[in-house]
């Protein structure tokens, strides 16, 4: 998984791993899917690993990830976080993700 080279410099940064839970016929889910694209673009798309799951098809996954509200973005890396909502405040979310990275690298 990780190589020794990572520890030597700031580059390449560790990937961001996220799962977005959505549900069909939910306007908030549709908005979240749009907003997440903008978010990824603001990060380095090559470093972002995004999985979008339909809660109606994967309720077990939702159970395991303790999903109650839809949409919910589960950020697994760099720091485990649950972000509930349609991600309207993308800037805030971005700031949050970046602060996680700094926290982890320092």
């Amino acid at each position, binding site marked *: 998984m990780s190589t020794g080279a990572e520890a030597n410099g700031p580059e390449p940064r560790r990937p961001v791993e996220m799962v977005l*839970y959505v*549900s069909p016929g*939910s306007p*908030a889910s549709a*908005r*979240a899917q749009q*907003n997440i694209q903008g978010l990824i673009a603001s990060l380095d798309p090559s470093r972002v690993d995004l999985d979008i799951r339909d*809660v*109606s098809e994967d*309720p*077990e996954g*939702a*159970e395991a990830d*303790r*999903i*109650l*509200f*839809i*949409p*919910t973005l589960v*950020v697994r890396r760099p*720091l*485990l*976080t*649950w*972000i*509930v*909502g*349609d*991600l*309207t*405040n993308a800037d*805030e*979310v971005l700031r*949050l993700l970046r602060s996680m990275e700094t926290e982890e690298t320092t």
Partner: protein
Amino acid sequence: MNEAAKVRKLPTGVPGLDIITHGGIPEGRSVLVTGRSGTGKTILALQIAANLSRQGVKTILLAVEESPEDLILTGDGLGMDLTGAIKAGSLRLSDASRPMEGPMVVSGEYDISGLIHRVRAIVKQTGARAVVLDSATALFSPRPPQELLRSLFFQLIHAFRTMELTSVVVAEAAEDYGQLTTLGVEDFVCDMVIIQRNVVDGERRRRSLEVNKYRRSAHHKGEFPCTITSRGLTIFPLDAKERPEDFEVRRYSSGLHGLDSMIGGGLVRDSIVIVRGPTGSGKTMLAGLYARAGAQRGERVVYYGFEEPRAILLRNFAQIGMPMAEFVKNGTLQVLCRYPEAMGLEDLLVSLRTGLEESQPSLIVLDSISSIEHSSSEKGFRQFMIGLAALLREHGRSALLTQTVMGTEATTHTAPYLSTIADAILALDYKVDAEDLQRSLRVLKMRGSAHVTKPYHLAIEQGGLRVEPPAITRRFDEWGTSPRKHWGARAASSPLGGLVVLLVEDFTDARETTAAALTAGGAEVVEAGSAQEAMAVLETRTPDVLLCDIGMPDEDGYDLMRRIRSQPGKGGQIPAAALTAWTEPEDREKAFASGFQIHLHKPIQPDVLVEAVVHLAGRESQGGTAPADRRR
């Protein structure tokens, strides 16, 4: 169409709850369980979940407030065996608690379809028919804006309903009496609302449960006492199920032959008897006779003594010639002495319930309920009594309860709920004469049985008590010679001053005695020895009140009354009381039908007589109770 007929119910198996809900919770609908923290909401919810799953209704338990592990621990600790139910596949726990591994941030709008899809998947997989959510308050924390909150909760309940799930939703309230829940949205969409309370009442805690709302179903209203024990929540409903054998009147001896003769042969089986009277009137002795007679018949008897230590109680019984040792030894009689002050009322109820279940007694004595009353608040005592009555009725047991009251309270004052609880009320009393102590026993009430209404003489003697009918003339003598002695301040204040009373009575002694009592009260009494004489008086005078005997030769009181009422003008409208020894319900009805407003029983206490006349004359009653059997 009859909507009420459509509510199908699931019995919860929670002791007492299905009685006050008339059968259980609404199937396929939502129930809200609310209350302050510490009222036992989670326990009730777990109990319902455990019982439903045990009854074959597969149930999902959504753990929000606590982790599933903690809930299982709580439930198993109360003997619900959630672990077993989970293993058997009849109960499914789902972890809906907030993740602790990382922060949770809210950004923008959302709905609750995540949880709904999870529940749907479990329903599909297991065939679950019920869901218990503990709690809505934790689920919506941090709290979304009110509009969104309302919409989320509605989505959830609506989803449960479309999945045909019977749901129990727990929610937190900020106070015992106030807004139903802190969120303030849940009750609107639920078909049933249960409120649990845990009020500090004086120095004691008082738990209660109330069914606040039940859509399309009747239910028992008001707060019912409840308790939490090592076996979960128990509710004590007032109206327990009617037992089929209640319809058959079976009698047994009260232990006092004279009393048996007053009440048609004995007490009625499975009834609750309250014996009230002042200190020293012989209540404990009567209780002892009752217990001893039961033990002698080979019945199992439990005697709860709250007044004195066991050794002293047993010694007192032995000294009066009612030794109990033999019955205590052979196990037919259990004497348990407790101090209600040292025990909460709930604990006492639980101990009574355990006692009933374990030793299966057929007779129970509580001596006295006053010591319980004095160690609690009025409301707490009422709840205790209601709970006790429910307990006794549920088990179909006979009980004798003693109650200490002050003087005349024994015959006049009764807390309404105590009257409802008691099937029979006996009043013991005594009067102090110059040289003698006159004891009396009176049957105030005897449900489902004819009984003597006048007081009988009571004597304390070796072997217990003796009861015998009074010598009528002696009683009248007592009153006639010194009526003032018995009524104290009220007589002295001349409550009947200025009133003219027409007294119709053929029996001279009785007429003079009654007249003396009225005169002492300040009234001017016009005496008539027959109906004829009475009519003659009415031709010249218009008295304020008519007091009339019924059983008279030639023309009886009914005929006289009818004749008077048929007269035009003021004379025909004179307020009237029948004063008679005929005291059966038919006699009373006949008196009312002929035109009397009040039906008084002979012999009558002077103060009751005076009060009745005050009442009839339309004067303000002087703080006394209204005489019984009054009708316009």
